[in-house]
């Protein structure tokens, strides 16, 4: 069995997150103390040498970001922790913050020293009250010990951390939108450059790192870049935390070295598919990512390999889907999410995604023609190339990746008016198999529209006009006497 390696989750589940002494006992804040003895340039160089890449999704080299922020001119600078985890199915950042808040606080303080900032801000979803609470406790404990605040550990370096609650908009995870949100404006993105490292929060140089990225910092400073590079692949060193969810037996958090294969994560660590059904696809990278089919399960995963497959690492959500999943419906789910979350600033994203969603609805309701597919793909590319920020630029990925790997299913919906997974309501019908029906009346009792008729102990029938295809009868029947056609 492939082994998990815990760097980011080194303390999560192991220490009391509300007790700083527990963190200290595990060599907590020693990395900060060590950094304070080094020159700022040396700290940045260590992060550069480690090749750590941003765990928020894009995989930009963290050290380079730090270097730009350090070199930026300005007496006031900021370190922002991006804890706006909005991907459906992702909960890595929440678990780190709830399980080990000090690892993030320490990472921020080291970053603050390295770039010359005195102020840190954690931008966190308001939907994470427990994480917020534990961060507050952590900040006040660290201050009491002189590990945050004025003249940290007797040095000239002062650094304080504040918390800002996000209102729960997906786009606010995007750097520039996040900055606007903290400034009190609508969370809308702006063009880059200027990059936040030069002109960020209140036009001051600002370093924005994700929770998981920051949790990697203290161990790197303490143990060195070479130590870090022994894990993972050459271009993507270290580990990655994945939130394993969906139709997999062992739902939970997984931290593995980069380069571990999808198969190892899903079938060994994850225990395989629930109910011993067949694997169909795995969705990575949230709405910005895509679906990867069975033939690529042995790909060692890192930033670059996932992008080659038309998906992306994203923050690390990993949703496993079994054979009962309709891939067109999955694309529709993610498009609906993007449409709901689009800030509306640029036309391609605001209008383009709505049109794409309409096309998917046409396909799943059995009203599409074959030429719609070409139109859909070309519009998807327009949205991808013409949108202002990362949200719009990646919004068509779920469509494009499912279309690449599951084109047959799209065609079946249109040509045969058939949904092989039995999900798209307009294309399916529930029928009772008379030979298998015992007349137990269980289905008739759960049917909300009284569409099932029949006498006790005699085979029942479904009145198709009344049936709303909710599937209650199907999941209730204990004799497998109801089929989807």
């Amino acid at each position, binding site marked *: *069995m492939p*082994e*998990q*390696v*815990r*760097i980011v*989750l*080194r303390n*999560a*589940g*192991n*220490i*009391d*997150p*509300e007790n700083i*002494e*527990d963190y*200290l*006992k*595990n*060599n*907590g*804040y*020693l990395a900060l*103390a*060590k950094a*304070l*003895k080094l020159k700022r340039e040396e700290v940045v160089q260590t992060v550069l040498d480690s090749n750590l890449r941003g765990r928020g999704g894009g995989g930009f080299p963290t050290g380079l970001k730090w270097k730009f922020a350090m070199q930026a001119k300005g007496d006031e600078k900021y370190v922002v922790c991006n804890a706006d985890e909005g991907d459906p199915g992702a*909960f890595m950042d*929440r*678990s780190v913050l*709830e*399980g*080990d808040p000090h690892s993030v606080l320490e990472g921020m303080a080291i970053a603050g020293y390295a770039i010359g900032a005195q102020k840190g801000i954690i931008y966190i979803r308001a939907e*994470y009250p*427990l*994480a917020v609470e*534990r961060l507050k406790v952590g900040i006040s404990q660290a201050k*009491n*010990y*002189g*590990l945050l605040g004025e003249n940290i*550990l*007797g040095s000239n370096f002062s650094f304080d951390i504040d918390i800002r609650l996000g209102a729960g908009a997906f786009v606010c995870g995007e750097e520039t939108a996040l900055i606007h949100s903290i400034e009190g404006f609508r969370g809308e993105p702006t063009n880059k450059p200027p990059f936040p490292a030069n002109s960020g929060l209140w036009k001051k140089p600002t370093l924005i790192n994700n929770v998981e990225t920051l949790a990697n910092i203290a*161990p790197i400073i*303490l*143990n060195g870049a070479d130590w870090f590079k022994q*894990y993972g692949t050459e271009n993507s060193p270290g*580990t990655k935390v994945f939130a394993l969810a969906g139709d997999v*037996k*062992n*739902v*939970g*958090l*997984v*931290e593995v070295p980069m380069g571990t294969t999808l198969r190892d994560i899903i079938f060994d*660590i994850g225990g395989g598919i629930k109910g011993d059904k067949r694997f169909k696809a795995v969705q990575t990278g949230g709405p910005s990512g895509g679906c990867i089919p069975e033939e690529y399960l042995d790909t060692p995963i890192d930033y670059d390999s996932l992008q080659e497959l038309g998906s992306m690492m994203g923050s690390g959500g990993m949703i496993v889907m079994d054979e009962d999943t309709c891939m067109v419906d999955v694309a529709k789910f993610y498009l609906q999410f993007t449409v709901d979350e689009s800030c509306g600033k640029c036309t391609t994203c605001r209008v383009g995604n709505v049109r794409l969603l309409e096309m998917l609805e046409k396909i799943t309701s059995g009203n599409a023609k074959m030429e719609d597919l070409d139109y859909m793909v070309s519009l998807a590319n327009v949205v991808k190339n013409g949108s202002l920020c990362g949200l719009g630029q990646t919004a068509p990925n779920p469509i494009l990746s499912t279309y690449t790997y599951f084109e047959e299913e799209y065609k079946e919906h249109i040509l045969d008016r058939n949904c092989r997974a039995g999900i798209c309501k307009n294309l399916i019908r529930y029928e009772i198999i008379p030979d298998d029906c015992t007349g137990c009346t269980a289905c008739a009792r759960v049917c909300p529209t009284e569409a099932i008729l029949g006498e006790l102990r005699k085979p029942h029938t479904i009145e198709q006009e009344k049936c709303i295809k909710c599937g209650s009868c199907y999941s209730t029947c204990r004799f497998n006497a109801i089929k989807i056609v």
Partner: protein
Amino acid sequence: MPKLKSLEQLESLINELKEKENKNKIVLKVALGTCGISAGSDETYEELLKKIEEENLENIEVIKTGCLGYCYAEPTVEVNEPGKEPVLYGNVTKAKVKDLVKTHLVEGKIAEELIIEETHKKAI
């Protein structure tokens, strides 16, 4: 707690905390992340404290931790006995606490039916 003024003070505090720790104590870790709490791990925690007191068990500490990663098996309880590998129990609902305490802590046997396999190692 007076503020720490130097690396040396921090190091000596860390050493002091490590030394102060009672190495002979049994530590039970209950995962109380959002996933654990929604599965009832806070009730498990309270029940553990209650049963340990009822059984008059000494030298046991129960601590609240964040999520250990085994969300599918919440509530989870990890039993750390001095000199032994930690044992990880899953699906320890309030109702199962009594059995766990009796089997593992009173009789000193592993409660096999609740055990889940642990697959991770710490890099540090």
